[in-house]
């Protein structure tokens, strides 16, 4: 069983800079979170009173403008940002795919990198070794795995990172945009693998700007605006409201 519970979660970012005042003007735009006065410093309220409950089978898409708080919310769910107010509870093995190259070393060989990346994802060394042949086969990198990955093209590097990251099945997948890798032929295979992984995951939280991807993978959508929940509902309803020209100006929809 997997579950994500956010109870009245708020996140503030304090802008630490000697020129706080100069930066103030730059931040007061349509983009970004709400600004709350906080003594002399500037505080950006990145998330404001978010309550959310996800259970097995939920596929949530996060939509909203740049700076609306999508990535921040993903990081709260991944237990990276402890909320300033409110509580976060996550049950189940969570994998955050915001940096699928974490732990990889340019100077090390492909084989070593498979081991490193697996360990960073929380596997033991022996578990990682057991997974290595399957990862190597999926990556189709063959003899290149004997070379340091700094000799790889960026496409090959990404392909390896993808092969390793998707070799472990988590309960909860948290993603900032869909991850994919490879040339046309590999892309197809990668997409199939991703589909399987996401189908087996109990909960998916995906922030994306791609309507097609959201419609393909998600059932529920949450529209964030300036750190608040503007609308939550079925993908069809939320996307329709969000994508309607000028839709983001109808303040009456605010929940």
């Amino acid at each position, binding site marked *: 069983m997997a579950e994500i519970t956010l109870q009245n979660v708020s996140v503030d970012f304090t802008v630490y800079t000697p020129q706080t005042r100069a930066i103030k003007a730059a931040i007061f735009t349509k983009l970004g979170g709400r600004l709350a006065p906080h003594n002399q410093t500037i505080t950006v309220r990145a998330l404001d009173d978010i309550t959310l409950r996800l259970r097995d089978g939920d596929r949530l898409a996060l939509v909203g403008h740049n700076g609306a708080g999508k990535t921040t919310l993903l990081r709260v769910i991944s*237990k990276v940002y402890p909320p300033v107010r409110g509580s976060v509870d996550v049950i189940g093995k969570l994998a955050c795919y915001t*940096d699928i190259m974490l732990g990889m070393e340019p*100077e090390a060989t492909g084989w070593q990198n498979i081991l490193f990346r697996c360990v960073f994802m929380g596997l033991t060394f022996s578990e990682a070794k057991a997974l290595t042949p399957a990862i190597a086969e999926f990556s189709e990198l063959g003899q290149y795995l004997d070379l340091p990955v700094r000799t790889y093209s960026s496409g090959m590097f990404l392909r390896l990172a993808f092969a390793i990251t998707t070799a472990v099945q988590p309960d909860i997948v948290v993603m900032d945009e869909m991850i994919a890798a490879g040339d046309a032929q590999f892309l197809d295979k990668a997409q199939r693998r991703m589909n399987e992984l996401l189908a087996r995951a109990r909960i998916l939280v995906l922030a994306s700007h791609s309507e097609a991807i959201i419609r393909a993978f998600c059932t529920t959508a949450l529209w964030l605006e300036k750190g608040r929940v503007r609308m939550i509902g079925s993908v069809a309803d939320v996307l329709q409201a969000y994508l309607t020209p000028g839709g983001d100006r109808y303040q009456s929809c605010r929940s």
Partner: protein
Amino acid sequence: MATQSDRSGFGQWLLIGYREIASGIANWRIVHLMGISDLRRRYARSRLGQFWLVASTGIMVVVLGAVWSMLWKMPAHDLMPYIAVALVLWTVITGALGEAPTAFIAAGPLLLNQGTSYSTVILAVLYRQLLIFLHNVTIAVLILIVFRRPLGAEALLAIPGFLLLLLNIAWPTYVIAIASTRFRDLASVVSNVLVIAFLVTPVFWEETQIPPEHNWIIRANPFALLLSLVRDPILGKVPEGSAWLVASLLGLVGCLLTLVLIGKYRHRIIYWL
């Protein structure tokens, strides 16, 4: 923040701090990989990677030892082993404390993309310095052999001495890492303090060379104390009981305060990155 501090007191912070350290130790595999990554880069593209690692320490020991023994007309037989042991230890101190201010910032991608305990990063810093130390130990051993300075039974005291030194490096590393993530200027302060500390600590001069009226420089200097706990046994001198007591107390109190500090600021650090 209001709710966080409402339900947290001294004991609560201690508990959070303890959990933080425990989860860093549980991450020992990641600590190991982060620790060796720097060494691996050194080894990767040069045949003499490990040689270059110890070369700077070796050159420093030999040149300092030679020049100093000439200037002060001291026998190299006495001075060189003294400087070698002290400098190898000093490299651990300055390595850990020097890396501390940027530790969390350098590990930003890990901390931001995967909820990881901060102690994982600190343990990796210490582990890396320990590995570098093990390389540098060869210099000290070589010098001791060349100058025919056999180790006595009291040399075994260097082991608890080194553990006390590590403990008293570990907690300031953690404190500096937390503080200088918030106050970035501290990085410059720390590097300057380390230079001054190098000069006022008996690393390349002996305690006896200080005029008695200025002896406080050594007595008020925790680095001098920690160095002597390791160096003196190796060179055949047993450190005083009070030295052990002070170093242990310093370690104990420092660690407790650090745990409280971690407990109090743990949930803020990520926002300072």
